């Protein structure tokens, strides 16, 4: 982050149309918004569209923003909505935020891999191949789990902020977060188990 992010962004200045302050908002949050969009959509062009639309919408909506959530949560919410619009456009059959089916598929998330791969050295855990595998595993998460996981575990939002950004209850966020984490653990366990076996041969 650059030096000009040291001071908190002033909402009154933004709402008064201060361009320098808006530039500071863009500078501060654009890397995170782009990362989020890229990880939701898995496509650089779509991520760039979401990034641009997020700040265009933010500029438009600033006069009516009441500041009930933080600026970052508000921007994440706009970005998520923009990304969802793209997902719906590409894959209209996907239900991303519908919250009524959370108890349907509990069995799918019960752990089945019990290999302790935490002993693998850090540089091997973080090899470029492993990092690519992790990214692909995140892409394989069902979209409704992926959104929660990205906001909470990648962007570092609290459970409450994640709920606000997605318009979900805290309980739904917690359930989805656990499933997403368990899903990724299974995926990584399968991957690292193979690496451990390769080492032995």
């Amino acid at each position, binding site marked *: 982050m650059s030096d000009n992010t040291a001071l908190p962004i002033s909402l009154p200045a933004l709402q008064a149309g201060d*361009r320098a302050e808006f530039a500071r908002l863009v500078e501060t949050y654009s890397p995170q918004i782009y990362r989020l969009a890229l990880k939701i959509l898995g496509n650089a062009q779509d991520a760039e569209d979401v990034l641009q639309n997020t700040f265009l919408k933010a500029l438009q909506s600033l006069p009516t923003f009441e500041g009930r959530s933080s600026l970052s949560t508000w921007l994440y919410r706009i970005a998520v909505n923009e990304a969802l619009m793209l997902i719906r456009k590409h894959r209209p059959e996907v239900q991303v935020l519908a919250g009524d089916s959370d108890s349907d598929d509990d069995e799918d998330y019960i752990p089945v891999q019990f290999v302790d791969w935490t002993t693998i050295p850090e540089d091997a855990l973080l090899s470029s191949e492993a990092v690519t595998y992790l990214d692909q595993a995140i892409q394989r998460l069902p979209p409704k789990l992926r959104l929660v996981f990205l906001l909470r575990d990648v962007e570092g939002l609290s459970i409450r902020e994640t709920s606000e950004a997605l318009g979900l209850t805290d309980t739904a966020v917690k359930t989805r977060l656990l499933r997403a984490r368990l899903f990724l653990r299974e995926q990584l366990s399968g991957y690292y188990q193979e690496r451990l076996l390769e080492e032995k041969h």
Partner: protein
Amino acid sequence: MHNHFDCHDLLGSLSDYLDGEARQELCRAIETHMAECPNCRIVVDTLKKTIYLVHATAESQLPDDVRARLYKTLELTDYLK
């Protein structure tokens, strides 16, 4: 996991435990269970490591060309450093 009531309990409280939001009593119950159940111990350790790896690999670099086009779209090129 063992066919044991506590494994299911542990699974349900995992996120709270890992996020440091579980009450002391629950933490103790989880830790006691893990001492007896190697599979749950592995699930907790590897889950913790999974979250760590996600954090460790989360880059937030905005490519220069993407940034330049964003500033142009927003008519902020005067502020582009």
